[in-house]
């Protein structure tokens, strides 16, 4: 099937305006008759819930955490992009748009990205009005800093906790609606199934994580804002609970999954220390503004970093990419890091690390200035490694971080199932094959505050409110499925823990479907993952029962989905016979080791349709039409 993104026609800069005019509206008196279900309470879910409720819709919001203030957006450190051009350094909506399309290696939908850039400025204004304490200069104006993949300073920030402040801003807007009675929050509740009635998304089935109760909720539309799937690698920068379950369950109910092989490996994370490692901690990319990345020029150089003379150091990012240097795009920096470590030049335990050195910045700016900019990051690094980064360089290594892939959506953020909308990291639309720094916060809030409120009305206006109730037979069937699966997991009583099996999956994914892949490694993964999945369903041990708070059961359900989803990533990566952005196929590279894209054959979105467990999914394509941008080889040299 050829998919249509349903972008408006006309000049790029007028598309959104045109769509806004075309879309139907729901009258103020009718809005309260509609119920919208929102799954997930990160930036996208919280901002969407608050805004939809404020418009008058009844909103039911679900999250697995104990409060909607804890979604993993909270961990984003560095900042949020906006084309304000406050520093007068030549930024514009078009430039932000172009940087994002280029950063995504020309695999994103032009019209979506332009809209994102166009609303970026509104986000900053909105957040300031909510009381987000962005950094200010001495005259009281908003401060900006530069970020990877851009030559202008367009990143707004609140110390190293920008994600936290933006999420708390959205959460405060949500609190206001909760008080007004227009939103009901369901914390510690996990969505385990999507309910589709007559081809339209009309509700979800959930498990109450405290009582174990399996319940159904009916609504007129469902918004999935459940984040990304990097935990398929087991070790990632995501929160422990981040999972693919909500989107994968929707996939199994017919929603197409787009570009699952586009998964970003972030260059600046703290290296692994041992088998016990439960997650990886990211150090904001903003550190690359002032930190210089290097390794010793000679293999096996065991000298402490300070004793390696300048001439014997290899500042490999500056050497390979003179114009962007330490600020080259994430995928480029990650691969370059892996390469030098593969060559045996890496530092720290197991040689899996490179230095990120602030000595120059400290002598140029003084320790105080560096502390002001990155103090909390240095503290965090010290807590984890017991090393003082003011005195010796940090050690960093890449780690899975962000999913550019996600459920397929059209320009209105609606999936191929009518009534199912997908926002934020959970959809695929804006970042192509690689996301630039400080763009995730921008997208989550753009979707939630400024896009879904309009586009959802276009769908709802054509439906009858409350048409499907929770006593519909499909809900009963869905509850039975969820219940059956829960009972099965409990009944297995095998000998391996969920964590053990998750770690094994992570190793397969990292080794064969990781930062660089080949047809051979992917075929291997396609053999190993089903074997591991079979083992899981015979040999996993989940203690306790389903009718109580049972964290092992929660994990088991999520890992079971990852064990199917990993295969989908491998299928996607195997079919895409090109290298682009975060997807690097060893067979497709230039003589100097850069990604070689194939615009003739692969300038499309790969959207996969579920065809039964263990069966090969079916590929559908949405051709990417670039009306404005000329496809170019991405270069940070």
């Amino acid at each position: 099937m050829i998919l249509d993104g349903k972008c408006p026609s006309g000049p790029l800069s007028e598309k959104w305006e045109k769509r806004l005019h075309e879309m139907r509206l729901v009258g103020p008196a009718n809005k309260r008759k509609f119920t919208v279900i929102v799954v997930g309470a990160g930036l996208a879910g919280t901002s969407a819930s608050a805004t939809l409720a404020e418009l008058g819709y009844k909103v039911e919001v679900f999250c697995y955490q104990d409060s909607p203030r804890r979604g993993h957006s909270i961990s984003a450190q560095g900042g949020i992009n906006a084309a304000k051009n406050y520093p007068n350094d030549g930024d514009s909506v078009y430039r932000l748009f172009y940087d994002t399309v280029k950063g995504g290696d020309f695999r994103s939908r032009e019209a979506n990205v332009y809209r994102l850039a166009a609303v970026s400025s509104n986000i900053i204004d909105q957040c300031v009005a909510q009381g987000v304490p962005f950094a200010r200069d001495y005259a009281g104006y908003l401060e900006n800093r530069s970020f990877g993949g851009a030559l202008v300073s367009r990143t707004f920030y609140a110390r190293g906790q920008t994600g936290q402040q933006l999420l708390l801003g959205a959460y405060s807007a949500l609190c206001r609606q909760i008080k007004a009675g227009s939103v009901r929050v369901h914390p510690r509740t996990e969505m385990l199934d999507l309910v589709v009635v007559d081809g339209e998304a009309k509700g979800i089935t959930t498990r109450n994580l405290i009582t174990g109760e399996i319940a159904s909720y009916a609504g007129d539309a469902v918004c999935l804002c459940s984040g990304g799937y990097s935990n398929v690698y087991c070790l990632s920068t995501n929160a422990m609970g981040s999972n693919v379950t909500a989107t994968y369950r929707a996939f199994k109910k017919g929603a197409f999954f787009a570009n699952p092989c586009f998964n970003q490996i972030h260059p600046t994370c703290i290296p692994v220390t041992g088998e016990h490692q439960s997650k990886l901690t990211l150090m904001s990319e903003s550190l690359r503004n002032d930190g210089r990345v290097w390794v010793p020029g000679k293999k096996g150089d065991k000298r402490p970093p300070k004793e390696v003379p300048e001439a014997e150091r290899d500042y490999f990012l500056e050497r390979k990419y003179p114009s962007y240097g330490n600020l080259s795009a994430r995928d480029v920096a990650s691969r370059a890091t892996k390469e030098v470590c593969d060559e045996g030049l890496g530092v720290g335990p197991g040689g899996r690390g490179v230095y990120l050195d602030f000595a120059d910045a400290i002598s140029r700016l003084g320790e105080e200035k560096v502390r002001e900019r990155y103090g909390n990051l240095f503290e965090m690094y010290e807590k984890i490694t017991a090393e003082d980064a003011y005195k010796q360089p940090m050690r960093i290594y890449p780690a899975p971080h962000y999913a550019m892939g996600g459920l397929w959506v059209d320009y209105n953020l609606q999936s191929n199932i009518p009534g199912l909308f997908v926002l934020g990291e959970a959809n695929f639309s804006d970042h192509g094959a690689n996301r630039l720094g400080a763009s995730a916060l921008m997208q989550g809030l753009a979707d939630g505050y400024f896009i879904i409120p309009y586009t959802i009305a276009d769908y709802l206006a054509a439906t009858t409110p409350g048409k499907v109730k929770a006593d519909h037979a499909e809900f009963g069937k869905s509850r039975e499925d969820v219940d059956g699966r829960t009972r099965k997991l409990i009944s297995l009583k095998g000998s391996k823990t969920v964590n053990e099996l998750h770690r094994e999956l992570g190793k397969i994914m990292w080794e064969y479907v990781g930062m660089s892949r080949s047809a051979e490694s992917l075929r291997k993964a396609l053999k190993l993952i089903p074997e591991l999945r079979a083992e899981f369903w015979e040999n996993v041990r989940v203690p306790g029962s389903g009718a109580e708070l049972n964290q092992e059961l929660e994990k088991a359900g999520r890992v079971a989905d990852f064990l199917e989803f990993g295969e989908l990533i491998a299928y996607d990566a195997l079919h895409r016979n090109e290298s682009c952005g975060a997807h690097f196929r060893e067979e497709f590279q230039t003589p100097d080791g850069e990604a070689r894209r194939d615009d003739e054959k692969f300038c499309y979105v790969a959207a996969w349709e579920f065809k039964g467990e263990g069966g090969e999914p079916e590929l559908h394509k949405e051709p990417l039409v670039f009306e404005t941008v000329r496809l170019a080889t991405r270069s940070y040299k």
Partner: protein
Amino acid sequence: MNLTLYIWRQKGPDETGKMERHDARDVSRDMSFLEMLDVVNEGLVKNGKEPVAFDHDCREGICGMCSLVVNGVPHGRKEKTTVCQLHMRHFKDGDAIYIEPWRARAFPVIKDLIVDRSAMERIMYSGGYISVHTGGVPDGNAVLISKEDAETAMDAAECIGCGACIAACPNGSAMLFTAAKVSHLATLPQGRIEAAVRVCAMTEAMAGQGFGNCSNHYECEAVCPKGISVKFIAKLNREFMRAAFIKWKRERND
């Protein structure tokens, strides 16, 4: 290193709990405290026992989910550190470690080390916001904010809502938590307009949720993983007095 753990076990909110002894063997110095518990739990699962339930999520010290009292101190003894960021290098071989849930009247235990913190949520719902609609707001630079005020607001806004301040307070008071939000918003020009209404609503909600009052022990600041200062409690009190005065004046004019 090898450690002896005494962990609070409680099946449900209405059950009686007790401390249970567990041995943690071959603990690496590089593990985080929660990773050490992960390893203990894996052992329990393997031996057919029930693992210890505890809250955690980001493991980066920012989501505010983790909530353990370690040797009598919420988040453990390392300053300005959540328990997920506390590393085992701060313990030594042979140590006995006591691990308990947050203890406060407003925080009923759900299971083992997990407590119900929804009382804090209800304080936020009562007024922890600026009443702004989405859209229709002025340019971000239209209202200037002095660097000093922006920094002060940020100092208060850093609160992660973990509840350690409440668990540490002998009165189980939510004063620092509430004060942080009141101060964050009242320091900014955008939040100034509703400051009086907000401080009254939030303090009233606080009193209604089973939290005790503040009697200046400052245990809250000492355990706060973000180092939120008790000066914000003074700010809350000032805001409250000011609101009371405004109310009094208004009533007199009526």
